[in-house]
């Protein structure tokens, strides 16, 4: 049972402020992902929750208890590190049981809980090995096992999959998701990989330069990015974002080309406003090769020259030139295209985003 609550949490190193008074409430048993580019303060935030970094200002509550001045061992948390941080001189069994041994748990209970964790993670065959004899994925499983054994209020994950290769990462991602379904604890998960955040988390916290940009479900942050930064950060390939000026009923790009101003933004902007126009690759597609959900009236057709194509098998990313810039589009059910071909592109403007060029905030209702 643990709610984690950050209030005006601040971290300073000398005069440098790294985390600027962030507020966040994590519900019991919720899986929260902190995501952002490196240096955004996500790891520092996690380490403050763990107690590995001092707090310069604000409070952290875990389970309705202010833990600001408690050492890590008194916070009833578990942490999984990017580098696994296993104890190299102990066997897997000893690594798993270490926290219980320190807590002075009786032998039978220790054996039982180690056996449980080992069964959940499939470590039974490895119990007598040392970390140096394990592969990266196995080490990461031991690190997670060590976290489970403690039966903590909160699990903290610090980029746990970053040291694994791509295939293993996908596999372990699924395992973490299954694990959360089984152990049902509060999880705070730090990653720089937005795909990990999207696939795993109940809610995503997007951080940038020590501020929280947006908190929301994967769906919300994808469909309704609150800022230009979030729009560009979430989604792969990233959203097409171009600066533009609002004119009468349209947005005019730097090169002079224009697109109709989507209807729902009409009341939000004035002629002459500087905006950033955003459209996901999914919403730009060669005619007949996309998924259009909205009204046909929202679709704008332009014929564009193709500059590059990136075939992915089930789909092809088509880079097409519009207003002297490359716009990425996603072509489903792909047909062969080559550079220089001219293609009729559908711009589904019902999915368009507008951000204020000045503040970066979304102009969406």
């Amino acid at each position, binding site marked *: 049972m643990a709610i984690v609550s950050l209030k005006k949490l601040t971290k300073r190193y000398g005069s440098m402020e790294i985390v600027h008074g962030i507020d966040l409430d994590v519900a019991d048993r919720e899986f929260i992902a902190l995501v952002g580019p490196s240096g955004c303060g996500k790891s520092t935030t996690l380490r403050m929750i*763990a*107690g*590995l970094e001092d707090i310069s200002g604000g409070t952290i509550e875990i389970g309705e208890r202010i833990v600001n001045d408690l*050492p*890590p*061992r008194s916070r009833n*948390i*578990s*942490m999984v*590190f990017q*580098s*696994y*941080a*296993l*104890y*190299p*001189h102990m066997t897997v069994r000893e690594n798993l049981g*270490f*926290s219980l041994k*320190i*807590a002075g748990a009786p032998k039978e209970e220790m054996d039982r809980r180690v056996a449980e964790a080992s069964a959940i993670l499939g470590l039974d065959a490895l119990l007598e090995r*040392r*970390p*140096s004899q394990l592969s990266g994925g196995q080490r990461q499983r031991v690190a997670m096992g*060590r976290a489970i054994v*403690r039966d903590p209020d909160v699990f*903290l994950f610090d980029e746990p999959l970053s040291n694994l290769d791509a295939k293993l990462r996908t596999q372990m991602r699924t395992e973490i998701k299954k694990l959360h379904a089984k152990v049902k604890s509060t999880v705070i998960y730090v990653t720089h990989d937005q795909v990990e955040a999207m696939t795993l988390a109940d809610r995503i916290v997007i951080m940038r330069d020590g501020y929280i940009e947006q908190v929301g479900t994967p769906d919300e942050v994808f469909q309704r990015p609150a800022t230009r930064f979030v729009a560009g950060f979430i989604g792969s390939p990233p959203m097409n974002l171009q600066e533009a000026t609002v004119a009468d009923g349209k947005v005019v790009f730097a090169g002079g080309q224009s697109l109709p101003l989507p209807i729902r933004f009409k009341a939000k902007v004035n002629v002459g406003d500087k905006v950033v126009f955003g459209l996901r690759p999914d919403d730009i597609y060669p005619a007949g090769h996309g998924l259009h959900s909205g009204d046909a009236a929202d679709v704008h057709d332009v014929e564009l020259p193709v500059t590059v194509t990136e075939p992915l098998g089930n789909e092809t990313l088509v880079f097409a030139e519009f207003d002297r810039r490359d716009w990425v589009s996603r072509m489903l059910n792909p047909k062969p295209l080559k550079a220089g071909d001219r293609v009729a592109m559908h711009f589904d403007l019902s999915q368009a985003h507008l951000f204020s060029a000045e503040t970066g905030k979304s102009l969406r209702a």
Partner: protein
Amino acid sequence: MTVKRLSAPTLLLLPAVLVLAAVVVVPLCLSFYSSFTPFRLTRPETFFTFIGLRSYRNILSDANFWWAFGRTVLLLTIALNLEMLLGLGLALLVEKASRGQRLLRTIMMFPMMFSPILVGFQFKFMFNDNIGLVNNALQSLGVTRDAIPWLIEGHLAFVAISIAEIWSSTSIFAILILAGLLAMPKEPVEAARVDGCTPWQTFRYVTWPFIMPFAYIAMTIRSLDVARAYDIVKIMTDGGPAGRTELLWTLVARTAYSDARMGVANAMAYFSILLSIVFTVYFFKKLAAARTQIGAEW
């Protein structure tokens, strides 16, 4: 008729082999041989009288030799253990310093920058019963009114020598252990803190196993060092009073150069080397075990 030419590898190795033979192998063989003769520097012809193991039998039945041997082992035990503890403490403190660590590290090395002979002179002065700093301090602080005969009473002299030895060499432990601390990954320590360890438990279960190999390296170096301890003792007490601080190598040197009994001295020396070999083998075994344990990749 062609002269058989030496192969290239032989030819390339030859200079090294010749030099080694001249400066190491031949003297070693000669000295080893001389331990089986009654060779005296003053009577060169004795070098050619072979007496077999008689010198060895004599020294092994000589109480003075065994006392010196025992004292050397005792000094080794005391010095190594205390240096280890103090060095560990110093290293842990310096590692905590977030500022001026470089400076502290340099200062920590100071004792190693002095010749042991000078260290000996310095401590001889400090422990002097009349004009020494130690007695002066003890008397000024009112601890005692007597002049403690530091270098004159046997046990106290041994203590004084140990202190000088420890002062001059603790930094070897400190530096090597500090190297270990700086090289060790930080995450296991953080994991231990999260796992519920108190600072002491973190040290005991995580930090210590990591730095153990470094401690053993220091142990090996220092055991060889102390087993051949000579200079500090020579200066401070010259083995006195009445042979109460005589160590193996002061005894060997006295036998070889004061008594000119080179044959016997060599026999003692070869026997003493056994001591060093035993310690080295022991610590290397420990080192290997400690390295395997932490899965060291060096």
